[in-house]
């Protein structure tokens, strides 16, 4: 097939554009100088300072808890939604359901954040729940967003699945719930893991919607980072960014190796 040098060059430039800022961030996180863009020798002191910054540590712990909770919620809801979309055929309300599940993928987060806040305020007014804003309200918003992404991931795997295994089990008298847990889940397990990880990552990174529904004492890591970098560049954030990039690269690399091993 036709592969011109110009195309290869354009592709290379595109990848360089994607990776140069990340590479520079990582390099400058080891910069001894406080002046972020002037090289002042190698040092790991920003990592040391970062690990002693209690505000960041607290925020990171809260973020991890929220991310684990909402990713699990998103996984359960996303699996159910994917089952409905793939297995239920046509039913009344399918169009609406499909619309509702894909809309959060493209809906600007600023609208979602405002809308969720107004809902929580109205609910609290009516029922007394949720009492203030914090962990619960943030987790609910992240679950809704994560669910939309989880559905996309699980649905495409479910659509490719060979249903004859399930049918065989049914013919042998297994109940639907049993079939689901013993056959469907193991078959689609990789997509479930991917969906959970995706929802987890999205939650861990969310600024805009979280800003609306977080209360005093519930500052997540991205909110903490955002409010500090608004004032200017900070060497500690460079170090934090490097840690995040390395962690993500390691996880993705592992998942890649595992799935590549299976395919062989």
């Amino acid at each position: 097939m036709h592969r011109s040098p110009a195309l290869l060059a354009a592709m290379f430039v595109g990848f360089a554009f994607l990776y140069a800022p990340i590479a520079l961030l990582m390099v400058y996180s080891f910069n001894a100088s406080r002046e972020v863009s002037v090289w002042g020798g190698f040092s790991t002191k920003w990592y040391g300072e970062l690990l002693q910054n209690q505000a960041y540590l607290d925020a990171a712990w809260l973020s991890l808890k929220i991310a684990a909770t909402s990713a699990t919620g998103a996984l359960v809801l996303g699996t159910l939604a994917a089952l409905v979309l793939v297995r239920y055929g046509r039913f009344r309300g399918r169009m609406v359901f499909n619309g509702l599940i894909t809309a959060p993928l493209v809906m600007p987060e600023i609208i979602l954040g405002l809308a969720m806040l107004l809902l929580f305020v109205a609910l609290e007014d009516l029922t007394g729940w949720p009492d203030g804003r914090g962990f619960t309200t943030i987790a609910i918003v992240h679950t809704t967003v994560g669910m939309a992404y989880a559905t996309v991931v699980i649905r495409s795997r479910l659509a490719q699945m060979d249903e004859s295994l399930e049918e065989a089990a049914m013919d042998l008298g297994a109940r639907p719930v049993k079939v689901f847990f013993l056959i469907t889940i193991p078959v689609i397990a990789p997509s479930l893991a991917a969906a959970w990880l995706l929802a987890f990552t999205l939650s861990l990174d969310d600024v805009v919607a979280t800003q609306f529904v977080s209360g005093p004492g519930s500052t997540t890591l991205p909110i903490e980072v955002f409010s500090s970098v608004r004032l200017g560049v900070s060497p500690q954030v460079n170090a934090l960014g490097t840690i995040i990039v390395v962690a993500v690269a390691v996880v993705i690399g592992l998942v890649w190796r595992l799935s590549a091993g299976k395919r062989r």
Partner: protein
Amino acid sequence: MRVAGTHRELGRRLVLAVPYVWLLVFFLAPLLIVGKISLSESRLGIPPYEPLIDWAQSGLAMVKVSLNNYVLLFEDDLYVQAYIQSLTIAGISTFLCLLIGYPMALGIARAPEKARGPLLLLVIVPFWTSFLIRVYSWMSILRDEGILNHALMAVGLIDEPLIILNTDWAVYVGIVYSYLPFMVLPLYASLEKLDPSLLEAAADLGARPVRAFIAVTLPLSLPGIVAGSMLVFVPAVGEYVIPSLLGGGDTQMLGKALWDVFAQTRDWPAASALAMAMLAALVLPIALFQRLQTRLEEEENR
């Protein structure tokens, strides 16, 4: 057997009901509330808006609707500017994403089969790393005393630092950079499906590569172009983090204006009206995107 049958039916309904109810309560209802509050008057207090429905003494519900918030939006130059600027910046950024993303997607689709997986992975990895950190990484590059200016001055291309950070230019860079993977992935999906024999046929008939590209590749990748453009354009219109970190005082985008009205002025009805106005501009592209998605899925399921 009958009992088992009703059990099964109940189970089926439950599987549908749980995610459906969640979406109605935690997605649709909030949007309806935004619509409702955008029609009520603002007031001082908590919550800072007048109730839309007043239960009069006779037990009759009085519905108070006010279009004031919308009128104020249209009369205020600041918001009209923000509206126009958001759509312009998002539109131009989408086009730039397409210009950079198309050759990337095409290059990956035409790479040897073994290389496609890793190349695709390279596009996806930045999407998994923190969006906030990636936007932030441009701050130290684009500053007046930043890495880019240092490099350009060292080479001797410029004598004075270019002022990029806190201007619209930096916002363009930030949006194109952050949303590029969203453009490349759908483009790749449609280019990968393209039957190579079509291009061979075009070449056999004497079409030069450029001609074959315009006549065959480009039209067949149109679904990818539309999907990618929507995935970039719609969130870019409401972008808040990028203009906050990279934009300047005169970069007024709707997302930022909405947050300022909400958090600083504390005028919730006005913020709601702003959200509805933003949604109005996005309903068409969102609907278009959804129709395309549904069509693609139906094709897949067939």
